[in-house]
């Protein structure tokens, strides 16, 4: 219930900050550009565009939200309530993944129609968005200014872009299988062709494992930022 309320609050906040209006505009421009791309290359461009923007929008926006909330002292009040840290993170991930999903479908539907593997495609957007949102939050927690955060978040995310080289047939290695972005690219390609259950299962598993790793890192950093010790007993809220 608390997560649901936080989720609604985050959605309202994002609406107020004009995220949806900006993305509506950005998506319309993308659709216009994609219509000019030849059909032979459209599939790859569409997958790469979805991976780099709608799916990964949380990287930039989540960090900004965290910095603003911390700067305005919202956490002092928020974490004095029974809200748990994981609920706070989950609400951020859910709300931004909804924006990612809306933006991704707003691009795909007018350009290539309904995805060939809609379930895998949707999971690809949501899980990739979760992953990058958590990276954005982790980067913001270690930063003191918005510009410092931008550098840090790009540095954190850069390494995860490597499988794109494989996707573009520039440089291939089986090591890409260890990267969450390999799973993302596989699931997102479900928009243009059928995905086998083996590939789908692997992609979901690798993303879930990485979300677990980055999630626990973000939890640790958030906890170190907001949690106090009280008489030797650690507790969730300050």
């Amino acid at each position, binding site marked *: 219930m608390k997560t649901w309320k936080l989720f609604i609050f985050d959605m309202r906040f994002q609406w107020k900050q004009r995220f949806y209006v900006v993305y509506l505009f950005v998506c319309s421009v993308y659709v216009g550009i994609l219509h000019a791309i030849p059909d032979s290359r459209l599939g790859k461009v569409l997958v790469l565009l979805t991976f780099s923007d709608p799916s990964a929008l949380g990287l930039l926006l989540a960090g900004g939200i965290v910095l603003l909330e911390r700067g*305005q002292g919202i956490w002092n009040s928020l974490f004095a309530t029974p809200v748990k840290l994981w609920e706070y993170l989950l609400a951020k991930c859910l709300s931004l993944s909804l924006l990612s999903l809306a933006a991704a479908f707003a691009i795909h539907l007018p350009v290539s129609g309904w995805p060939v593997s809609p379930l895998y495609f949707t999971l690809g957007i949501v899980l990739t968005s979760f992953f990058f949102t958590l990276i954005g939050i982790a980067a913001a927690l270690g930063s003191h200014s918005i510009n410092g955060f931008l550098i840090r978040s790009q540095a954190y995310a850069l390494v995860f872009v490597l499988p794109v080289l494989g996707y573009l047939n520039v440089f291939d290695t089986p090591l890409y299988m260890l990267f969450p972005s390999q799973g993302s690219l596989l699931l997102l390609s479900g928009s243009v062709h059928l995905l086998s259950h083996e590939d789908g299962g692997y992609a979901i598993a690798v993303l879930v494992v990485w979300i677990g790793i980055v999630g626990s890192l973000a939890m640790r950093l958030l906890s170190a930022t907001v949690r106090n010790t009280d008489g030797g007993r650690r507790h969730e809220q300050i």
Partner: protein
Amino acid sequence: MNKYKALLYCDMRNAARDPMLLLILAGPLLLVLTTRLGMPPLSNWIADKTGYDLLAYKAFISLLIQALIPQLIGAATGLLMLDERDERIIDCYAVTPLRKRGYIVYRLILPVGICCGMSLLFVSASGISGLTVGQTLPLLLFVLEAPLFALFLVAFAANKVEGLALSKLISLTLLGPACAYFVAEPWQWLAGLLPTYWPSKLYLELAAADNGWQRQAIFAIGLSVHLLLLYDLLRRFVNRME
């Protein structure tokens, strides 16, 4: 002048602490270096693999990078100003001899200066720009875009989160060079609403062999568009601050 020196000294100290300020300098430098050193081998590699001649589009690539330099500098400056406004640092400057006016002047002049240096460096050292250092009219318009983008963020964003969202719109101005290069006239004139279209169009006109009155007209319209936008955004920003 001393009041500006104090702020400049402060910024230089912050540059060591805040990596983004360093990136304002390092980012465009990296772009120049990457183009100079990476473009020929990348072009050869793509030609070997796909038979596609990347250098055939060097004018377009050069335009994109010239449009990207003020974007990087302007967006970083705008986000820095939003940060300072969110943390009420601007109010502190207002009660110093610098005053709000001095703060705005300083914050907008500095990116122009950096952008000038970086753009000239790109033209002279990248190896792909068809312009000579003497043909600086498109650069003049590109350079004006750094304070334009910074003002766009601070005029329309209420805080840094909105600034981040609006910075997505700034990146869409790269459509200006794309339209000037790929879209046929008269349809490309629709892109004239984007400031980046005018220096791009002027660059392409200068690169073309024929000499005509269009160059002067494009420069005059481009300069007017930039100055009008700068005036309007500055007015909005000042109103917002008060």
